[in-house]
């Protein structure tokens, strides 16, 4: 595999180039070992279809989503304005991200603070690429496999995007089955609202265990996700039931990248 050179906005600017799209990586995709694999899969797809993209690199900072949901509006707005300053400085117009939390924050909460961009979730971009014929996808290793898609709250209920990830997954000739709680009725993985960063309150079950149990009841080969936090929570949930050998938790981007041997 030839190495892919990922350029930053500042490198592009120095070379007098303008990218078509900014890839907003997000903290999870930048630092978490599991999520970095999703990041790389997205990069391989972008590279494969020859989209000229750039990242912010070390100039990217947390969007402020966890701080905001945890009630720290000060910290959120500090983060937001810092990021908006950087992006406006580069004249960013279009963004793709692999994280529904970053996606939601930039799409819905940055405009009133001066950040106006066209942003898409990576599953939307992949769907668009497939529809335009720029990306040819066949089942590959996933052909005929049983897949369950878990809706991320901030992509689904938060922004009414339910079909893009499903349509992409279905291009892999899979058997897509639905949990009872799916789409608008989808159950959270347990990470949102800054719960990712704290222990849960006393109760009789962890939310991710409840959700993994529901998904595993369908006996899938893959639980497909579209969010690095859901990925962590569902992976832990599957491990809780010792089913990690039978059922994999994969991001839609990873499935696509692997199906077309990227």
């Amino acid at each position, binding site marked *: 595999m030839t*190495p892919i050179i*990922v350029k*930053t906005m500042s490198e592009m600017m120095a070379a007098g180039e303008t990218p078509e799209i900014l890839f907003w990586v997000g*903290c999870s995709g*930048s*630092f978490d070992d599991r999520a*970095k694999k999703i*990041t*790389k899969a997205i*990069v*391989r797809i972008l590279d494969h279809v020859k989209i000229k993209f750039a990242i912010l*690199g*070390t100039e*990217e*900072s*947390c969007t*402020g989503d*966890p*701080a*905001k*949901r*945890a*009630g*720290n*509006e000060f*910290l959120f*707005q*500090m*983060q937001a*304005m*810092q990021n908006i300053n950087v992006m406006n400085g580069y004249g960013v117009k279009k963004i793709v991200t692999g994280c529904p939390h970053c996606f*939601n924050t930039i*799409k*819905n*909460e940055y405009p009133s*603070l001066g950040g106006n961009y066209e942003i898409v979730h990576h599953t939307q971009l992949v769907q668009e690429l497939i529809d335009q014929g720029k990306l040819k996808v066949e089942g590959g290793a996933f052909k005929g496999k049983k897949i369950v898609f878990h809706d991320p*709250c*901030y992509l689904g*209920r*938060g*922004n009414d995007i339910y079909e893009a990830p499903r349509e992409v997954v279905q291009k892999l000739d899979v058997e897509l089955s639905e949990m009872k709680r799916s789409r608008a*009725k989808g*159950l*959270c993985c347990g*990470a*949102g*609202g*800054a*719960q990712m*960063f*704290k*222990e*849960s*309150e*006393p*109760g*009789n079950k*962890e*939310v991710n265990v*409840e959700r993994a149990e529901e998904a595993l009841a369908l006996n899938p080969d893959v639980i497909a996700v579209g969010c690095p936090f859901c990925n962590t929570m569902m992976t832990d949930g599957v491990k809780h039931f010792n089913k990690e050998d039978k059922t994999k938790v994969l991001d839609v981007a990873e499935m696509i990248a692997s199906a077309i041997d990227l």
Partner: protein
Amino acid sequence: MISSLIFSILLLAAGIFFTINVKKIRRNILIGRDVELPRNNGERFKTMMLVAFGQQKMFARPVPALLHLFLYAAFIITQIELIEIVVDGITGSHRVFRPSIHGFYTFIVSFIEILSVLAFIGTIAFLARRNLLKVPRLVKRELNGWPKLDANLILIGELTLICCIFMMNGADEVLYRRNLSHAANLGDGSLGFSISGHIGPLLFGGLSDNGLHLVERIGWWGHILMVLGFLNYLPYSKHLHIVLGFPNTYFSNLHKKGKFATLESVTDVVAPNFDPAYVPKTDPNHHQRFGVKDVQDLTWKNLLDAYTCTECGRCTSACPQNITGKKLSPRKIMMDTRDRLEEVGKNMDANKGTFVDDGKSLFDYISNEELWACNTCNACVQECPVNIDPLAIIMDMRRFLVMEQSQAPNELNLMFSNTENNGAPWQFSPSDRANWSKEI
């Protein structure tokens, strides 16, 4: 003559008493902060027609939706009959509209009777769901005591009301056949109503003339007294959704659910660091508390939400934290908000219209444990059949805890300082952020 007088006095008294209570509710709602909602009246009207009038979100659960539709339709259509009852009551006439609109009259009353039977079935089913089947969301701990009694009282009231309608129409049918009804005899031999035309003679056929008149009057008076009683019970009950469901859906949040409010008071502090020419949006002389401590800090829409809630618990049954046994219940957030609001309202009544500090706040009702459990997943908001937003209240109370009290859980404080220092919620060096790109 005497009965006309008694009726008119009762009607007037009920009207006045209801008006006084409605004004109180209006005042209580307006205790909330003003908030400017996007105008977009066309979309608002459409939302109201679909969600409130059309019961759109109810049909996510078809069985209760259908049962509820019976009650809802019966309630709406019965209002037509009520016009005649009021005219009859005041003037001493009986079935005043029947002679002039004969066929249509028979159709309307027959329709009401069919809906009433369906509503009767619905009400019995609802009582069973609460008291026998014990549907989980209808027996949660926040319903213990008054809320449970309140719900049962309303259902029993509805059953009584329906029984009164059939006593009234059934007995009148037998009287009409005996040519003794006070309704004008149109020479048709029967009032011809769909249900009472059959069950009236069955149930009351053996009664004496006097007995029939008595049953008919008990039915008639019972009906109108239940209506006036229900009207005045409304402000004390959880049942205001029958009215407030309409304005509450009209004033729904029209944004994507993922978009949370931006606090302008915070922007005014943060923005000048980035833009020296920034012009503050809020009045600098009026310090507005960051987040919500008490009902006065909530918006009027939050408070309208609280009065609109009918405690159905769909929110709670969809809440991931409640499902997994945590204390958080979005329904309880709404019930607590209303309880505290009514406490503040009573305080104002007792103190000539101004609130005198009672040393309490919304935090005496809602615990930090509940607030910190929320996933902000919007399941509760999605579920609510009248577009109530419990999440907005949870978020604003978290803001108060963090920005005014510095009372976030320790792990979250760690996340805050990581974000502030490293630009990521974890303890990683910002210079390592793009390391992954070298491994590809």
